[in-house]
């Protein structure tokens, strides 16, 4: 009988039952095969110890789950993030829960008058919560209002990657902020993402809103006079971003600049729309109160970031008050500020101090 192959001998080490009786019998009585088997066994043991993993038994599954669930949920939060692969509906969303749509609408609407942080919420979320999937579409977004009426995209931002900073500037009219000194651990050339101006018209439909609420088991409050059929025109962008990524695709550092959105109403006062949206079922009362109060005094918007995952503070960046957001697990941070209707953000898997340093030295 011929000697069994090396592969059979190797299997004998791990799974003797997977080897035929004939082969086992041969090896047991063949000195050459026994020597080869010993050699295979020794090699297997050596490689096994060489490939021993660092100790991972005490992984923090709860913290890891919090990180993952926030990243996963970012892809289904309609108001702030479109489905990345839904090419036909770049601004659309995967989920149309009325409360989520209303929240997004309120965030946009309440920020319209102050050019505040409304538009950087999606960018912040993208960097913070779903760092794997930063796309140019994330730069310019509007909430999915289709649960409440008809949303017609009148201008597509046509997001995409471009070859270099100069092309990005030509496409958007925005200069890509230049990073003077890359933080330690960030290397190589960035990729550049751009998006043009996005524009949409929303026509409120009381009937559609009532159906959406009913689908959620809720009753829609009666809309104020004039709201049914009234129109809002939403405009945002352009946007540009430079991204340095790890081999896994996770952005290490993102520097982005985007035009803050504006909203125009066709008749119904903005406050009327805002108050009505805030009265819709499903919005947490505390959040609605907060939005109503802050938008009334024209101050900075609150950011509906997940408080259990993120802490926020403020810092000075070139004379502007920037908001600094840091994930509680310390993996990500972001610095965002608004000047002259343009929002600039620096975010990534770095410390807040490193990002502030980048922000303050941007050219």
């Amino acid at each position: 009988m011929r000697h069994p192959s090396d592969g059979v001998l190797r299997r004998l080490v791990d799974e003797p039952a997977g080897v035929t009786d004939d082969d086992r019998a041969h090896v047991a009585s063949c000195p050459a095969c026994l020597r080869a088997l010993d050699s295979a066994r020794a090699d297997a043991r050596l490689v096994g110890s060489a490939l021993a993993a660092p100790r991972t038994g005490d992984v923090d599954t709860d913290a890891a789950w919090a990180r993952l669930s926030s990243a996963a949920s970012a892809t289904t939060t309609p108001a702030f993030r479109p489905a990345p692969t839904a090419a036909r509906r770049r601004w659309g969303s995967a989920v149309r829960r009325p409360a989520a749509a209303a929240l997004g609408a309120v965030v946009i609407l309440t920020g319209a008058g102050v050019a505040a942080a409304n538009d950087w919420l999606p960018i912040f979320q993208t960097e913070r919560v779903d760092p794997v999937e930063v796309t140019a579409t994330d730069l310019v977004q509007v909430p999915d209002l289709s649960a409440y009426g008809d949303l017609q995209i009148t201008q597509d931002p046509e997001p995409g990657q471009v070859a270099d900073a100069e092309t990005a500037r030509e496409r958007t009219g925005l200069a890509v902020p230049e990073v003077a000194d890359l933080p330690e651990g960030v290397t190589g050339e960035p990729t550049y993402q751009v998006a043009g101006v996005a524009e949409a018209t929303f026509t409120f439909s009381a009937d559609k809103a009532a159906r959406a609420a009913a689908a959620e088991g809720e009753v829609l409050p009666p809309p104020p006079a004039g709201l049914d059929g009234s129109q809002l025109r939403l405009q945002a962008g352009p946007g540009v971003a430079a991204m340095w990524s790890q081999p896994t695709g996770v952005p290490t550092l993102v520097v982005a600049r985007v035009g803050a959105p504006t909203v125009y109403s066709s008749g119904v006062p903005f406050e009327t729309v805002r108050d009505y949206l805030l009265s819709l079922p499903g919005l947490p009362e505390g959040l609605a109160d907060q939005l109503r109060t802050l938008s009334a005094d024209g101050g900075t918007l609150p950011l509906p970031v997940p408080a259990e995952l993120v802490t926020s503070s403020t810092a000075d960046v070139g004379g502007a008050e920037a908001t600094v957001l840091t994930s509680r697990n310390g993996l990500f941070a972001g610095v965002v500020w608004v000047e002259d209707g343009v929002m600039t953000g620096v975010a990534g898997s770095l410390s807040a101090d490193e990002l502030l340093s980048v922000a303050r030295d941007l050219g």
Partner: protein
Amino acid sequence: MARPRTERGTGMSRGRVDVRTDLEQVFRSNYAGVVAVAARVLGSRDQAEDVAQEVFLSFGRSSVPADEAGGWLTVAATHTALNLLRSGRRRSAREENACDGPAVVPDVADLVITREERSAVRAALARLPHKQAVTLVLRHSGLSYAEVASALDLSPGSVGTTVRRAESVLLKELNRHASPE
């Protein structure tokens, strides 16, 4: 990211963004194991946890049956970690040093030796042909020959051959690395 074959085979829709409802249960059952597999490849727990996040995100958007999750995740983690390893680009020394964790806390000399050895093993692993490396890692992660064969579309008979060849090459690489110039 390289995805395991089974993902394509189960009809995952690339346009789909809904995250499956059983993700948390699968995550909690498999997270530690996935990190361990990726750490076996990378020699770094910190990087392994990043890989695990990536792999579970992919799983969350896939339609892989829950009862196949364990094998799918292991294969995906191996591919992803090997791709990261083979890319030759590592995350910053700061990150590597910060989070690998106080494993046993030996004295400084031991720690240096361990890190050097670990690094040499990973370098050798990165030089193996991809299929050999994946097969080797899966086998040493505890998958049976039948499971490895199924995951990599090999015949069960050839798993042993591939593992044996990979072990020989790896040890040869390590010996070459260890021998004085």
